[in-house]
Each structure stands twice: as C-alpha cells, then as structure tokens.
C-alpha cells in the first residue's frame, strides 16, 4: 500500500479530528490496518456528524419520503416534486449556523452559495431563495451585528447571482444569543426529464472538476465547526469559514446548466462540506463503482498544499462531473466559454474503492463501502427533562391595557415589520414573482406553463421548546396555513433540524419527539419529505438553543391571478374568522414579553381538522371569494387584524363577544382572518366579526376596547427598523 504510512500517533490524531475512540478502532478493523494521514483526514470528515448523520439517520428513516408527485427523493443533492406540464421543482433547506456565528457575512453568503449548488447540481435552475434566521434579542449588540452581517451576506450572494430572495423569517430569542441559526432554502425549476443524479457510472468515464481553484480556505469546516459545540475562541475558527465569490458561482451555474442542457454529463455533484472528500465517495457509492483521482491535477490557488488539504478543502464554487471521454472536448469548451476552470482529475473504475494518487504515488486507498456506509449509526437515549431547560425571558411588559399590549406586540422584534431586512434582497429578478415579501403569507412564483407555486418557510423554536411534539406539528401546519392563504396546496416538505447536542438525553428527547411529529404531520397532509439537513451541537457555554425544526413547503396553485394577499383591499368588506378559534396564551409572544416560563406542554392539535380548514381557505382563495387571507400566528387575532390593516392601509371595525385577553392575543393553530364581500362569505363556514374601512383599528370586546389610528400601529410596527438603522 501507500508510501505514506500510518502516522505513529494515529489514535491521538483521530481524537483531535473529532473521531471517537471506538470509531477509530472500527476504521482500523474495517481497513485491516491503520489509516494514513490522508485517509484519516477523510474518515474524520465523512464520519463527522455533518456528513454521516450518525445521530439522526435512524430517526430520519421514519419520515415519509414517497408519494405520487415525488420525482426525486432524499439522497440526491435535492429532492424534487412534479408540478405538471413536464416541469419539476427541486428544493432543499440547509444550515450554515456555526460558520455564521463565527463570521456572519461569509457564513451566510456561502450558506446561500451551497444551497444554490445543491439545486443546480440536479440540473434545476435556481428560481428562489428563502432564509430562516435566529438570533439573540436585538437589544444585544452582538445579535444586531450578526443579523446585520448575515442579512448582508445573504443579499450579497443572492442578489449578485440573479436569483430572487422571496421569503424568509427571523426570530429573536435569548437561547440563540451565542449560537445563531442561518438556514437557507433554494427552489429550482427543471424539465422533469432533465433532472440529473450524482451516481458515478461507466468505468473509464472521466471525473471533471470545474469552477474555482482549490485553496486552503474552509479546511475542516464540517468537522471543526459543524459537528461540535461552539466554545470560547470562536474568532480563532475564522480560517475554517469559507469565502464566497458569487460571480464565480454565477458562471459555474450557467456552465452547469448548459452542460446539462446539452446532455454532456453522466453525473453531477457539488462540492460542499468536506469538498472532494465527500463528493468523490458519494458519487462512487451511489453508482456502486470505484473512483481513482490524482490530486496533482487539481487546480490550486496556492502552491505547496498538503495532499490532505487538497482532499478536505472547502473552497467554494466547485462542481464535480462524470463525463464520457468522447464528450470531454465539448465539456471543456463550454467551461472555457463560461470562464470556469476545468480539469480532468480522475476516472471511474470497477474497484469499488477510492484511490487517491499524487502523480504516480498512491497516497490513499479505501473501500467505498467503508468510507460511506461504515460509520456507526447511533441510537439516541432520549429522556424527557424533569423541568424546563430554559431560563425565562426577561419581562418587558407590565401593562394589562389591551391597547398598550397590542402596540408592544407589534413592536416586539418577533412581530415587527421585516421590510428593513427584505428590502436588502432582490425579490423580482427572473420575472416570476407574483407575491413579494410582505404581500402575502407565502411567496408566489408563476411558472412557464401558467400555474404557480407558493413557497414558505417556518419554525417557532419557543413552541417546540415547550412541547417538541406539538410544537413541531404546529410548525408544519403553520407553514401549510401560509400556503393556504395564497390558494396553494402543499406538494412536498424540506426541513432543517437545528438542535443542540444529541448525546445529551434531554436534547435527544427533543429531537426524537420533533421528528415523530414531522412524520405524523406530513402523513396527515399527505406530503413527502423530499430532503433536508440536520444541524446538531447548537449550543454554547450558556446552554442549548431552542429546538428549531425549520420547515420549508412548496405548494401549487392553478392560477396566479387568484393568488391571495394579506392586505385588506376593499372598504366595506366583511371580516371573518375561519377555522376552530381556540387561542391560548402559554408559550405565546405575549407570555414571552411578560417573562413567563415555558409551559410543560401545548394544547392538543386536531391535525385532520386543521387540514380541513386549510382546504376551505385554499378553495375560497382560488375561487376569488376573499379580498384578503391571513393566518393567525404570533400575537394572536389582534396582531393578525393589525397586520392586514397595515398592509392594506385600511382600518377595521371588529366586535368580539368574549372579553378575555387570550381571545385577543392568544395563539392558535388553524385559524384565519379573511375579508371579502359579505354575500360571498355567507356561503362559507366562518364567523363574521367586523368590517373593513377607515383609518383606525377598532376592536371591542365587551367593556374592553382597542381603538388606535393606523399611524400609531405603523409606528410601533416599525420598531425593528428603528433599532437597526
């Protein structure tokens, strides 16, 4: 075997690289020898949590991943669903949490770059980006800095590459103070027959690495940053964060799509976490073949890189393709035209092994099966925590006057207007955007064959912390409610599971319960989980983050001209409640402002009943019955009414029978505020509660009364911009 023998201190090196003692022993047993430096570096990455999903894979296997509309399921770079007319939509959400906590601008930018590559790696043109962000309270300077730079990074990358950022969400909670979350979702459009897989095939076929040159940036990102808790000295880890170049990615994207369109590729894979170390074995494993690569042929950004550095580099904007030798010249010509570097670095073999050469010298040889499937999968040991794991938030609201409560809620960072943030993103490029951020509960994009898709992303960590099972059910249903408000039925779900250290029993319990809920919710809605990402070890010295399953949904609506909107639109319209309105204050935004501890559980949710309500809303939107539709979420009914009024610059007069605080501000799953002509609403199962009109929001509930000018509401709602600008 190799001239480069195993290092004498292999065991200690393995531990330093994040492998466990048992895992190192297993590698030695499977290889029947000790790994050398290059091999050890590769094992440490492929067997890291980030690449192997060793603590989550057994759970993820319980999720429903099939269905009639599914055209590409989990396991590929992204999953895809059929949207009719011969078109498919590919989508996926992924995290870039720890890089963003260390260097927010590049961390967030390369998070977007990575998810874009996942989408064009399956041959789809990226048509939308969404992001899901979590920070500590914006009263903290660090949180404001992280938010400002992360938003800047997302915009820098997405805007420069010509893919619209059409939606997203951001929450601010204490437990994210040290460990922010930056999740990015991308949606792509492709002719179904043009989807391409990553399985290498055809011994003798060539591996072409194209895109940017390989440098020392991002070395160890997946193992150093993504698979361990964030501790002290985060700044020292900055060299592990990759640097993004959106112009390079733009050329890489156009080049990849042209190569696919001209049918010049056998397989395509992006280089993400762990670089070549991950991409090469993954392609070989999926195709059940072997691959030889020669690192001497890898174009490099700097001289004298160590072989292991070339193998593990996370330099951005690179793709790996399998090409038939007869098509090589055409492939290289296309790369030249797009000014993306390209080099043949290896070939497909029948060996079922990965062999790494440095010129003539063999410097690593590992069976594909051992590298990719040899990593042990761990059963979790979940245990329900005896008490709340989280300190109660600071109390910031004392008043019991409904008017000042409403104003405080509208000014709360979790509810305040997000315009200041989303105006930093191009939401119109590509000429598909029918509903922009702020216009509706979900973004709507028209497709070439006349129909439209709706996209939303959601996840309330506080509710999941209170009750991982019901909180996760609520997150899926809330996201589906957003789709219903524009008239869309969900087609598929992607998720990013952001949790703390799963080796701790209470975190394992959160994760187990949350995944169980995700499966139950998807089965009830009859949608597949098309793929996703797991981000674990999200905790710092001050404890775990709120468990945060972020769900992204793609749905379809037949006619974009009938897409729903949030804003009240017509003076004199009736306002109605649709769905079972059973609001509760525990774990609500108001409870947070009052500094209340999380409750031990959330109210039971009738999933089938909520799904039926979604169908009612969806069909009515499609039929043009409503002028506006908005789901009741954070801040409850009063905030939902205020949001519709502010969006439309039209007031409302509402009368409620019940005077209790929870009717106004309690939160619930499966209720909607809609408006429309009274005659049109009459045929619907709903409760009329008021009328649209004027320039004030009036809500009377017995002796309790809210009567505020829209200008007052707008001023409160602008609190986030005031805080950041």
């Amino acid at each position, binding site marked *: 075997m190799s001239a480069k023998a195993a290092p004498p201190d292999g065991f200690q090196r393995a531990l330093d690289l994040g492998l466990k003692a048992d895992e190192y022993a297993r590698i030695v047993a499977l290889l029947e020898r000790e790994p050398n430096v290059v091999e050890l570096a590769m094992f440490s990455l492929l067997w890291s949590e980030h690449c192997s999903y060793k603590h989550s894979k057994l759970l993820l296997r319980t999720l429903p991943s099939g269905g009639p509309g599914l055209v590409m399921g989990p396991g590929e770079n992204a999953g895809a669903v059929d949207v009719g007319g011969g078109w498919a939509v590919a989508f996926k959400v992924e995290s870039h949490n720890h890089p963003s906590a260390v260097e927010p601008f590049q961390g967030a930018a390369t998070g977007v770059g990575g998810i874009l590559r996942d989408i064009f790696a399956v041959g789809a043109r990226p048509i939308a980006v969404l992001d899901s962000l979590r920070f500590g309270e914006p009263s903290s300077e660090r949180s404001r800095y992280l938010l400002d730079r992360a938003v*800047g990074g997302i*915009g*820098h990358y997405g*805007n*420069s*590459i*010509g893919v619209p950022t059409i939606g997203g969400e951001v929450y601010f909670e204490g437990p994210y103070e040290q460990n922010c979350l930056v999740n990015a979702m991308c949606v792509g459009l492709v002719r179904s027959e043009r989807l391409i897989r990553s399985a290498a095939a055809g011994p003798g076929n060539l591996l072409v690495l194209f895109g940017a040159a390989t440098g020392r940036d991002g070395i160890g990102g997946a193992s150093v940053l993504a698979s361990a808790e964030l501790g002290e000295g985060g700044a020292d880890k900055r060299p592990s964060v990759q640097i993004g*170049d*959106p*112009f*390079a990615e*733009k*050329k890489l994207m*156009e080049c990849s799509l042209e190569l696919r369109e001209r049918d010049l590729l056998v397989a395509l894979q992006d280089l993400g976490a762990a670089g070549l170390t991950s991409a090469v074995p993954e392609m070989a494993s999926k195709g059940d073949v072997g691959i030889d690569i020669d690192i001497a042929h890898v174009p490099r950004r700097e001289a004298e890189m160590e072989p292991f550095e070339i193998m593990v580099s996370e330099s951005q904007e690179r793709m790996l393709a399998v090409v038939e030798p007869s098509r090589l010249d055409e492939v290289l010509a296309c790369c030249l*035209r*797009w*000014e993306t570097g390209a080099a043949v670095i290896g070939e497909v073999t029948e060996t079922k092994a990965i062999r790494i050469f440095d010129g003539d010298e063999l410097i690593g040889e590992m069976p594909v099966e051992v590298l990719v499937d040899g990593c042990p999968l761990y059963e979790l040991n979940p245990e329900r925590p005896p008490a709340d794991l989280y300190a109660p938030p600071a109390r910031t609201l004392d008043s019991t006057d409904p008017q000042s409560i409403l104003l405080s809620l509208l000014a709360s960072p979790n509810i305040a207007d997000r315009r200041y943030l*989303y*105006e*930093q*993103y*191009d*939401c*119109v*490029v*590509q*000429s*598909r*955007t*029918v509903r*922009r951020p702020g216009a509706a509960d979900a973004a709507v994009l*028209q497709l070439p064959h006349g129909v439209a898709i709706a996209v939303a992303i959601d996840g309330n960590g506080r509710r999941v912390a209170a009750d991982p099972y019901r909180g996760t059910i609520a997150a899926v249903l809330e996201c589906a409610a957003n789709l219903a408000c524009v008239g869309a039925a969900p087609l598929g779900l992607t998720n990013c599971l952001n949790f703390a250290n799963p080796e701790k029993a209470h975190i394992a319990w959160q994760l187990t319960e949350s995944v169980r809920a995700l499966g139950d919710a998807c089965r009830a809605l009859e949608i597949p989980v098309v793929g996703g990402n797991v981000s674990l070890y999200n905790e710092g010295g001050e404890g775990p983050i709120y468990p945060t399953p972020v769900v992204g949904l793609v749905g379809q609506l037949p006619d*974009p*001209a009938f897409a729903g909107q949030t804003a009240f639109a017509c003076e004199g319209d009736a306002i109605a409640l649709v769905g079972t309105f059973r609001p509760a204050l525990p774990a609500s935004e108001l409870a947070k402002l009052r500094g209340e501890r999380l409750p031990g559980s959330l109210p039971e949710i009738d999933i089938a009943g909520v799904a039926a309500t979604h169908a009612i809303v969806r069909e009515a939107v499609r039929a043009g019955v409503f002028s506006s539709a908005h789901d009741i979420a954070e801040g409850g009914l009063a905030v939902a009414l205020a949001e519709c009024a502010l969006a439309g610059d039209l007031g409302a007069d509402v009368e409620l029978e019940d005077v209790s605080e929870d009717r106004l501000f309690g939160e619930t799953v499966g209720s909607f505020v809609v408006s429309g002509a009274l005659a049109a609403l009459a045929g619907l199962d709903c409760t009329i509660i008021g009328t649209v009109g004027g320039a004030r929001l009036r809500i009377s509930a017995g002796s309790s009364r809210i009567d505020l000018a829209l200008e007052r509401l707008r001023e409160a709602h602008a609190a986030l911009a005031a805080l950041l600008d």
Partner: protein
Amino acid sequence: MKFGVVVFPGSCDDVDAQLACARVADVVPLWHADHDLQGVDAVIIPGGFSYGDYLRAGAIARFAPIMTEVIDFARAGGHVMGICNGFQVCCEAGLLPGALLTNTSLRFVCRQVSLELVNPDTPFTRSLAPGARLSIPVKHTTGRYYAPAADLDRLEAQGQVVLRYAPADNPNGSLRDIAGVMSEQGNVFGLMPHPEHAVDPLTGSSDGLGLFASLRDALSGSLV
C-alpha cells in the same frame, strides 16, 4: 425591428430584458466576448453584476469586446438603453454624463418606486403620457446619481433628465432625485429603475412597457 440585449457573464436581468423586449420587437442576445451586433436596431445593456462588479460597478464591463461595437454604434447615433448596471456601464464608457455612487444607506435596496416623467419628448418616452407617473422597481447598491452642479443645471436645461423619483421616493440619495438621464444627442438613455420588471400587472406593474414601446415606435418612425 430587432433589439439586442448584451449578456455579460454576470448579467442577472438579461433574460428579463429579453422577455420585455420580446413584447414589442424581435430580440437577440449579444454575447460579451463577441464583436458582432447582429444588425440590431437598438441595444439594451441589462442589469446585473457584469463581471462581478469588482473594482467598481461597470468599470470592467466597459472594456468588454462587445462594448467596442456598442460604443461605436452609439457614437454613430444608434439607440442604447442602459438599465441599472447597464446605466453604470454607460457612464463608465463615457456614453452618459455623471456617475453612480453608493446609496446613501450604504445598503442594497429593492423597492417599488414612483417615477415622474420629466421629458416625454425622447425616443425612450414618446409613447408615454406627459406628466405620467410610473411604478417601477429599483434594486441596487450603487445607484446614487451624481454630477457637478453646473452639469446638472445643463442636463436639466437641455432636457436630458428624463425620469425623476417622485418626491419622498428617492431610494438612494440621487442628486435632484434623478432616476434616468439621456445623452446630449438623445440616443443613449440610462436609468436605475428596472422597466423590464414592470411589464406585467401580475408581477407588480406594466408601467415599464411604455419605455420599450416608445423605442420601437421611435425607430420604426410610427406616430403615436
């Protein structure tokens, strides 16, 4: 009638511009590395980040092979419309007066803005009603129009200021709310707002379509 849309490797709104042009005329893409204008009647330089906008927005693009032909075409009286990054390229190439600086907010801004038509008597605006208000999106980081005061006075006096942001709707701090200017000869027009993103009410507005229709009408000599 044939419009050409320049495609740099970092153009983002080139396809959108082609879609908008196709509503009023034939359209072909003009590849940045070529030297052939393919006999087009007008050239659109679209938005985006031509070469990553490294160095300075539009500064590298101005030296692209295709720009040699575009500059000759313009100097010979050919009609050129530069949108956003295309406006920046035209300023860098000396086809338009002034310069585009970083927004006063120092941030990217994407927003629907209201524009006032200042000069309806141009090849780019002749089909629009005098005094029209146009709802068109802007999206840029480098859109603050600047020229020395004396130059601004002259531009205004000669009718070269074509579009202004409506009062209180200036998104970038442009001097005198200037959103679009044309060359002294009236054949080159640059604007920061994106008319190609305002050609269909379904996606927000169709107020930008008139600019493309005006150019077609001007070039075909038809009276409106």
